[in-house]
């Protein structure tokens, strides 16, 4: 029988020698150009990192190609980043440009460092999940094609982190992104009374609903949904498969902006609703791509240097954000969940637009 609980391979065995020698003794770094980092150690040694974009959904052959490249230039050492980019790690400066040339010849985008748009953190979508309200890889590919130049250059006021999650479970953790793309359902799940009794536990189904829209119907061993209280989060479906929620006509995408994670300058923040709904239009989701591009461009032309999307909006005000982007403000933008009153404007300080 196979050994269990062995855990992952020890990362120390995966570190390139230059890192092993200088582990924890780095002195400073420079971004030599977009996608290329130089980290200099106290010893004076330097580590070069070349960052390349990846679709994340990769075939084994693609991984082998990455391995080929890493072996050719990096003695076989590489890593992936927390945003799913590939980083080639090397200590020989002379190999940096040839590596980049080879990456270019194989159509790997090099970039994603500094004031750029890095890879889009995303999720499974129609490729592998059971609750998506949209696809993940498709909208990401369509969007990255359009904003490609922001990946390979560093021309934005600050870095812009985009994430996509295909349902409210938010596996893409879009809740703290500069720009977030979130799949949403908009149809009240219909309990299938023939299947609920066998497949679902009534109390946990009732408990799963954030707004208390579900009532147990003990007599018929099923549940009922109060349409008016349901905001289509799909959590009941996660708990009770007999409450399908997907609906081709009404599923789609919402856009959120202004979140961040780092503690730099301002504290981490949640993303806030910008556009409540855009339709699913595969294969290239033009409405979504345009909406995100518009936000990026308005941001790029109005924010100050080092100002993240959320910091810019907070400085100029949300009134201004909506007037500059031309996005209509609706009653859906006003929170009505449990801490809604915290978001209401309890002051006469505001801008006219």
């Amino acid at each position, binding site marked *: 029988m196979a050994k269990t609980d062995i855990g992952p391979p020890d990362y120390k065995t995966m570190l390139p020698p230059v890192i092993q020698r200088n582990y*924890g003794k780095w002195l400073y770094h420079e971004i030599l150009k977009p996608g290329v980092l130089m980290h200099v150690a106290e010893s004076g040694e330097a580590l070069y990192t070349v960052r390349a974009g990846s679709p994340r959904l990769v075939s084994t052959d693609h991984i082998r190609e990455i391995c080929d490249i890493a072996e050719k230039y990096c003695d076989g*050492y590489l890593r992936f980043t927390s945003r799913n980019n590939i980083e080639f790690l090397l200590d020989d400066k002379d190999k940096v440009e040839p590596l980049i040339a080879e990456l270019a010849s194989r159509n790997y985008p090099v970039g994603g460092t500094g004031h750029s748009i890095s890879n889009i953190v995303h999720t499974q979508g129609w490729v592998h999940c059971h609750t998506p309200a949209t696809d993940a890889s498709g909208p990401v590919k369509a969007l990255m094609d359009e904003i490609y130049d922001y990946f390979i250059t560093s021309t934005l006021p600050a870095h812009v982190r985009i994430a996509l999650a295909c349902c409210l479970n938010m596996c893409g953790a879009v809740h703290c992104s500069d720009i977030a793309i979130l799949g949403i359902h908009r149809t009240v799940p219909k309990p299938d009374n023939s299947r609920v009794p066998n497949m679902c536990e009534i109390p946990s189904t009732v408990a799963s609903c954030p707004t208390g829209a579900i009532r147990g119907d003990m007599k018929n061993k099923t549940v009922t949904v109060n349409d008016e209280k349901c905001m289509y989060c799909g959590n009941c479906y996660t708990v009770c498969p007999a409450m399908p929620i997907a609906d081709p006509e009404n599923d789609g995408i919402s856009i959120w902006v202004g979140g961040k994670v*780092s503690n730099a300058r301002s504290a981490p923040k949640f993303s806030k609703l910008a556009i409540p709904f855009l339709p699913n239009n595969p294969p290239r989701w033009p409405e979504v791509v345009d909406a995100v591009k518009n936000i990026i461009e308005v941001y790029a032309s109005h924010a100050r240097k080092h100002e993240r999307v959320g910091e810019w909006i907070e400085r100029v005000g949300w009134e201004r954000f909506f007037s500059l982007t031309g996005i209509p403000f609706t009653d859906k933008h006003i929170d009505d969940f449990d801490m809604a009153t915290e978001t209401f404007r309890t002051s006469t300080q505001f801008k006219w637009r």
Partner: protein
Amino acid sequence: MEKSKTPLLDELEKGKWPSFVTDMKQAAQKSPMAEDLLSQLELSYKDKIGHWKHGGIVGVKGYGGGVIGRYSDRPDLFPNVQAFHTMRINHPTGWFYKTDALRNLCDVWDKHGSGLTNMHGSTGDAILLGTTTEHIQPCFDDLSAAGFDLGGSGSALRTPSACVGPGRCEWACIDSLDVCYNLTMEFQDKIHRPMFPYKFKIKVSACPNDCVASIARSDFSIIGTWKGKILINPAEVTAYASSDLDIQKEVCDLCPTKCMEWDSKELKIHDEDCTRCMHCINLMPKALRPGKEKGATILVGGKAPIVEGALLSWVIVPFIKLEPPYTELKELIERIQDWWDENAKSRERLGELIKRLGMRVFLRGVGLPAVPQMVKAPRSNPYVFFWPEDIKQEVK
């Protein structure tokens, strides 16, 4: 010319960004599973709806998680993805790989699965995307032989993740890689055998830039920080001053506490007011470095919105030294998990439980003192509970 079977997906092979469709087609050439996956996805693109059934439970011997069961709702059309389960694999901490390890993984996966992967999943695992029920155990056996193990799923600890930290970064205040790896090894049992009320995630960033988004994406967030003065290298400050960096405008004016002074010659930092946001250090990495006394801030409660709304982790220990074997840290984690386990309802994340019972009860439960660093501001509502021992009891 043959008409393409995937006209919609073909559109996504256009454009400059690397295409997942190309990768799927590549895999489809070797694997009938991948081929059917491609066709089913094309159908989804046409129908604008997913074609997977609600997941079922599958797994390997001795483990309670690590595999996500998945079945097609159109096995009539796509028999090769009738069952198409995902295996989550503990990644080497920091996502460092030697190519031979990666090649081993690929070989195992070509043997047992679709040949498609996510490098990596949002929690950090290497995701092996799609295999049949029969292949799960043999695949696991081969993975184990190749030195890999499963990650978590269900109501378990998930694979902890860490920023690159001391592996490459000059700002690392803690050894994020070692802490993360050590905890991963220590808690293997909790990863593989779900016994919690719900999922539990740990993420380690070695400084407040938080490059693994630990504050947003983990129930237990470990973030490096320091005490004492930011180290200033005056010569390098001067060098920056003559570069195109505007120290006053770009550095000092954006310092959140306005604790920096720059007179075009000398840079002064009133460190007692500094909240260690990293901004100045980020902009002047050659001139400024985190202070000497290094450790971590511990925060808990981060999570996505389901059920009670998204939470960012909040401070519960402002400063803790982190040195192997990390006994104090591990004991704290155990105390917190025990308290959570005892008190939580099913599917209640740690943050939601604390929200429900109150920090007061949590702190007492896990034996931590209340300190002002835990809050942005003290309470404004007057609904203050007193402990029984605070109250003078009448003898009636």
